[in-house]
């Protein structure tokens, strides 16, 4: 068989991943706006509450995690809707490559464009909230697993609402209850570390949840995309 007709799974994944990453680099506002939103709102919180050091260290992990989820929800509309609007999505669905794999590539690219920048700026927020360096490291670890799980769960919500106009709030309604475990474990693990108790079980849970979401999210998203674009 001709080699060009027989593209391997990995190269299909790579092509999709590269394309989405490039798309994101060419539209930096898509990447930057949620990030600026995240930084600005987290920085605005101390104005609204008592900004003493003890208070900030107490509420910091929760605020950072809530804001991470909120700014994440803002990015979800670009995950599939842009492709659906310009018709690329139909070609992606029709392609001979397995759709869950391509969806996974899109999810990974989404994590690179939304999760990774969040992790990169999070130390600044940690400093604003009076965190110690080791606490910041724990926060980065929770954000690492947590944002990937958010990408996976968010992909389901975005794919379910692909045929709906103005679905931004709806997506949040759908995925927020499912994201609650990530919020609980993400924020609590940092809080527990600050209180000096064990944290490793929280990180174990988050990585396990990540793997679990990885096992069903690409398939559910692929099925929803197929149904939604009929």
């Amino acid at each position, binding site marked *: 068989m001709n080699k060009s007709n027989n593209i391997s799974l990995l190269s299909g994944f790579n092509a999709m991943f590269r394309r989405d990453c490039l798309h994101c680099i060419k539209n930096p506002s898509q990447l930057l706006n949620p990030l600026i939103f995240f930084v600005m709102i987290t920085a605005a919180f101390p104005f609204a509450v008592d900004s003493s050091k003890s208070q900030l260290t107490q509420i910091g992990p929760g605020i950072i995690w809530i804001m991470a989820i909120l700014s994440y929800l803002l990015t979800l509309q670009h995950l599939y809707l842009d492709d659906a609007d310009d018709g690329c999505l139909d070609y992606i669905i029709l392609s001979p490559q397995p759709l869950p794999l391509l969806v996974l590539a899109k999810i990974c690219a989404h994590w690179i464009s939304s999760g990774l920048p969040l992790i990169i700026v999070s130390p600044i927020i940690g400093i604003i909230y009076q965190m110690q360096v080791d606490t910041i490291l724990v926060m980065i670890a929770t954000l690492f697993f947590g944002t990937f799980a958010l990408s996976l769960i968010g992909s*389901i919500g975005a794919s*379910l*609402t692909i*045929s*709906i106009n103005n*679905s931004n709030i*709806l997506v949040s*309604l*759908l995925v*927020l*209850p*499912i994201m*609650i*475990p990530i919020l*609980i*474990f993400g924020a*609590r693990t940092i809080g*527990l570390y600050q209180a000096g108790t064990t944290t490793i079980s929280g990180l174990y*849970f988050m990585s396990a*949840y990540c793997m*679990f979401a990885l096992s*069903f999210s690409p398939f*559910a998203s692929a*099925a*929803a995309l197929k*149904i*939604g674009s*009929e």
Partner: protein
Amino acid sequence: MSSPRYFYSIATSLIPWFLVSGLILMVAGLINGLFYAPPDYQQGDAFRIIYVHVPSAYISMMAYSLMAFAAFVALIWRIKIAHAVIVGAAPLGAWFTFLALLTGSIWGRPMWGTWWEWGDPRLTSELLMLFLYLGYMALRASLPNLAQADKLSAILILIGAINIPIIHFSVEWWTSLHQGPTLLKAGGPAIDSLMLYPLLAMIIGTTLYFGSLLLVRTKAEVLNREKNSRWAKKMLLGDQL
């Protein structure tokens, strides 16, 4: 059961039986629970809220499990009735979840001294359950195409269902850090039979009642979906032809 026409006739004959037996059991359970059961040695008469709280919490869980089962059946075997069952069960489940939250909070007031206690994992996960119901109904309401709405919302139900144990576990882990009051652990194995039987009657009665309303709603939904079929027209106009 999978033929809509057959389902319709079965449902029509079952509804009054379910409704009447459910209501009788509920009335009997309530009267016995409120007036004949002895007061709890710790909570006094406040424990009597159990007779409305536990059945509603049970129905809210059962309705979601039923919806998840129906979603599974609908997606795997493409049985159309199952979609109608999900549509019928969702508002009922949401109402009973709301009721479980409301009565739980009313119970919490005399027992914990507060209307809402984040330390109780059951109340908190029940709140998240309500969000799942609302999310399902919001998705359903914003999809105009019936076939699409059916399949997409079934996927959402299944995703919610596999996440419910995780949500419950994480909420429990989170509340174990608070050490909140756990007075709601009423009963246990040594519950008085005078307390237990009304509770069982309430649970079974509410389930039967839920079943009858589910059949009514599913019947309406099936009819709406089959309005262009011959049997539906024949049956609807039968009394006028």
